[in-house]
């Protein structure tokens, strides 16, 4: 089994004192889905953002696709990682001044230096996969939240990434729009994409994930398979959290 992510004892504090990440370690193998859960402020976003260098950390080491980074911010290595790792955000963060298709082709054209014909053809293929090819010429603000998030996923896929990161991809959506995004993610997982997903969607976590990582106050409280985590969580704090989610 190929290891895609190997995190060894990383710690981070934004300001002196409080630790946003406290000695976190984890591993994700190729084709696996890791779901990260935990209360708000527990460090989930901070953790997932260290994987592609959006956040620095103070100690420890991360190995992504064989590229090692540590507390010394190494721009060249991080750039290498970013070209092979896609990310999807809670607020979609589409480029409002570019059409849907231009949003998707921006990176292939500028990072991979592909030809426009090539990039647009692949962009249309991705939009088709997401079921939104009819919106290719529109602008982000003309789309619903669910459609925008699917565009964001297509944009992340445009560089043919080997790993996808999702930070609460459905938290900003209307409830009736959540499933259209989760369905797309389910399909990606089935097709063998390696994924790390921060989410509160229990059903998605149960069905799709291979591993659940539960965090609190910057610490990994437990790492379990979904079967164990949802029926018989090892840790008191995990059970408390799940109880609150159910309500």
């Amino acid at each position, binding site marked *: 089994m190929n290891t895609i992510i190997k995190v060894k004892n990383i710690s981070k504090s934004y300001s002196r004192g409080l630790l946003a990440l406290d000695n976190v370690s984890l591993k994700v193998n190729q084709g696996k889905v890791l779901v990260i859960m935990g209360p708000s402020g527990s460090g989930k976003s901070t953790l997932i953002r260290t994987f*592609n*260098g*959006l956040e620095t950390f103070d100690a420890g080491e991360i190995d992504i696709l064989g590229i090692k980074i540590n507390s010394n911010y190494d721009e060249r290595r991080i*750039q290498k990682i*970013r*070209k092979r*790792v*896609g*990310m999807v*955000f809670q*607020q979609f*963060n*589409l*480029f*409002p*001044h*570019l059409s849907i298709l231009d949003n998707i082709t*921006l*990176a292939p054209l*500028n*990072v991979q230096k592909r030809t426009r014909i090539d990039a647009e053809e692949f962009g249309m293929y991705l939009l088709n996969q997401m079921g939104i090819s009819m919106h290719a010429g529109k*602008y982000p*603000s*003309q789309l619903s939240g669910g459609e925008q998030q699917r565009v964001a996923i297509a*944009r*992340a896929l445009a*560089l043919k990434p080997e790993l996808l990161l999702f930070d609460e991809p459905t938290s900003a959506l209307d409830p009736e729009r959540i499933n259209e995004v989760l369905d797309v993610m389910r399909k990606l997982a089935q097709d063998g994409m390696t994924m790390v997903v921060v989410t509160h969607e229990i059903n998605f976590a149960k069905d799709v994930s291979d591993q659940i990582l539960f965090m609190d106050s910057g610490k990994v409280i437990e790492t379990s398979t979904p079967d164990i985590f949802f029926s018989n969580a090892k840790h008191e704090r995990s059970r408390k959290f799940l109880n609150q989610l159910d309500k």
Partner: protein
Amino acid sequence: MKGDKIIFFQIIIILLLICLFGFLINNLIINLIRTDLGFNFSWLLKPASFALAEHALPYSPSDSYAWALLIGWLNSLKVIFVSLFLSTILGIIIGLSRTGNNVLLKIISSFYITIIRQTPLLLQLMFWYFVGFLGLKNNFINFTNLLKINNQGIEFLGLSLTSEFSALIIGLSVFTSAFIAEVIRGGIISVPKGQWESFRSLGLSERNGLIRVIIPQALPAIIPGLTSQYLNLAKNSTLAIAIGYSDIYAINDTIINQTGRAIECFIILLLTFLILNLLITNLMETINKFINKKNFLY
């Protein structure tokens, strides 16, 4: 009821304005009668009989006042447009340094902005002229005849600039650039943080992201601020008189002293500045519309 009240106040304000205008015009007529001049522009065709150190077109003291004014205008336009160009370039560099990641550049640029914005422009012009140029030795910089800087001015690739002109464009450009830098910074920080994270996570370089993602979204916020800085620059250029550069204002001043035609001269000055500023405003609005059409079909 409320509408009636508003109309009532508007009528009062209009009446007050009419009274004020009447008073000013009355004053003007009394002054014109007293100085025995009358209101006319025929003197414009008489010889100016003063020399000008700087002229973009041929000029001699036997040319008319009208021609001297035109020369003054060309001198002003030269300063305004060169400074406009230089201050924009400088402002962009400083504004970007201020928002960038490099700590040293950040400190230097905020120091620059603070110092420049807190000192009067007149003082800065004096500094560039008297300390910057007149204080130089005869042979301050002489770079294989390509670039010469000394107390006579600047010589660059065969282009020779007087010390007055050089001091004026440097002073105006440096002063305006500090304000433009703040306009640029304001525009850039108006773009949500998520946009930076988005382009970074796609592997775009900082430079590419700035050009293709951040600047296009910052421009609608930047253009209006830039316009007002350009208008200020045009108006500030009249401080040229302080260091003896013959811009339109300085030449106007000389003509008033010679002919006593203060009213006509001020009318000419006002109208020409009005036209210039309307031109700048319109140009910037056209640019703004173009940008909006191109990028923001929300």
